[in-house]
């Protein structure tokens, strides 16, 4: 096979995979720890994307720099939503299964709210801006600079977060809570704050991915749902509750999706769904799950 084509597929796949990995880790934090299957996850991606878009088109702020603003903003929104909405559902739900069901439905309502609020503010049209769209020659394959930068940032943020989860005390507490809430609580982890933080961090990941995406793709207020689906698939692929696994899951999906795209463009989403359903039937605990 042509090396250029291979490189194109692989690096292209990694670019998407890197973004998917961030999104997947975000959802994994929200489901694995806070036990909220956040079907409005994609809307936080959209929020990040539009925040960066607005900051660039209105104030001329460099998209990469705007992460410093859009990131914490989305984090706060996520944190507050959890502390008010989902925390309340936690206390009122009769069982964990009931809570998961209720929070799924509440997240669906959130999807409605966030998406339509954005529609009211921005309108349904496709928006976009140009930033770093000159092409770069990498080993004979051509890539847009913004995509490579996005990949770079995704990798840096991903690695930073990985180190946070593995090396810091708070990170370990979060991973412990994802594995076993009760034991983590017994070991002194302040559950309410950790849950809120995890949800917020999950939103942060989505927001960052969205900001990076706004550099590469065109955006609309309705862009979110497909990415939510991809995140869910990646999380199941990596094993529900396995935060690091979802990172790998996102990368795998990005690669697969890119390869399928070369074979037949419209089929990648269908390929994802088939993979997803087969996975649930054969090994629901995921490739990396127990």
């Amino acid at each position, binding site marked *: 096979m042509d090396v250029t084509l291979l490189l194109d597929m692989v690096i292209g796949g990694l670019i998407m995979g890197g973004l998917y990995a961030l999104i997947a880790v975000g959802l994994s934090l929200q489901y694995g720890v806070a036990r909220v299957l956040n079907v409005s996850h994609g809307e936080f991606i959209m929020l990040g994307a539009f925040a960066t878009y607005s900051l660039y088109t209105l104030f001329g702020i460099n998209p990469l720099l705007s992460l410093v603003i859009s990131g914490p903003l989305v984090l706060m929104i996520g944190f507050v939503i959890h502390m008010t*909405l989902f925390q309340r559902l936690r206390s009122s739900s009769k069982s964990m299964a009931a809570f998961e069901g209720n929070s799924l439905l*509440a997240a*669906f309502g959130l999807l409605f709210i966030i998406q*339509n609020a954005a529609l009211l503010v921005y309108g349904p049209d496709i928006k976009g801006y140009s930033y770093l769209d000159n092409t770069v020659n990498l080993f004979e394959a051509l890539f847009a600079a913004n995509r490579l930068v996005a990949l770079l940032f995704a990798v840096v943020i991903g690695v930073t977060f990985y180190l946070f989860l593995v090396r810091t005390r708070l990170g370990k507490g979060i991973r412990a809570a994802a594995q076993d809430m009760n034991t983590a609580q017994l070991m002194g982890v302040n559950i309410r704050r950790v849950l809120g933080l995890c949800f917020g961090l999950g939103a942060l990941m989505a927001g960052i991915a969205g900001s990076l995406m706004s550099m590469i793709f065109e955006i609309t207020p309705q862009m979110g749902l497909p990415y939510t689906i991809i995140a*869910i698939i990646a999380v199941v692929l990596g094993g529900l509750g396995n935060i690091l696994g979802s990172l790998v899951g996102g990368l795998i999906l990005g690669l697969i999706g890119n390869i399928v795209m070369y074979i037949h463009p419209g089929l990648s989403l269908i390929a994802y769904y088939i993979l997803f*359903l087969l996975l*649930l*039937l054969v090994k629901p605990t995921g490739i990396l799950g127990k």
Partner: protein
Amino acid sequence: MDSVGRTIPKRFLSLVLLFLALILFAAAPRYASPYHIIQLTSIFMYIVLTVSWAVFSGPTQYMSLASAAFFGIGIYISAILGKVLFLPVVIGLGGLISFLLALLVGLSSLRLRGMYFTIFTFGLSELIRHFVLWWEVNETGTVGRWVVGVNPKVVYYVMLIIVLMTLAAAYIIKRSKFGLALRSIGESEEAADHIGINVNAVKIITFAISTFFMGAAGAIMATRWTYIDPSIAFNPLFSFMPVLMAIFGGIGHIYGQILGAAVLTLLADVLLTKFPYYYMLLYGIILVSVIVFLPQGVIGLEGKVKGLWKGELAK
């Protein structure tokens, strides 16, 4: 069973009310405006979706998000075969094919519990939607189909019949041995298995029966919309709304499910007419409020109010 003495008047009253309502609805097309007939048809549609969803998902606690798939299949059967076959046959086929697909889905997703089952059903519904879309784009060349139109009054009556069938089925299942078995599965599937209930068979059959009515409803609704495409037919809203409606009204009782479907459908209509720009946003806020403030549904409110009242009297 012990309180038979107290429930006879209550049941008699319900039957009388039902009979009166039936007469009212049967006569409606003569006296009501076309707009109201269409509105009632929509309400009936959501009642069918909500009550049939709750037949399985209510007692067993397996939250299915695949209602859109079965509803949509009914719609597409109508679109494809409506030109060639009589309406009643098409509707029956819509129901039958949904039933068969549901049997298949049930058999394959047996081992899945809780959230896994829910996301499986959601993924399945979305897969069907995307597949049909891809098929139409790549194989048939045109997206969407035109459906042979049918007199709105006929649609109304057919839907009314389907509602009655759904309610009858739901009631019979709930009050029978089967209904008890379903509830026990929801409480403890393993214990149910150990006292002789063939858990897999009960789950699959109930699930399939519930989807029959969804398919039939879809088949008739297609004739009212006349133009359909995958995003209309398999819209995820048709999966989520029945769940929210059932919860809003009170998932444990059939009249709660009916209430939830009727109220939320009317509400959506009112919001659409009064706040054309904001109605989706408002609807979302209402949905979230329902989940947060009414976990037992409106029916549960009655219990809460009674409790408060008793508390007051005790003082």
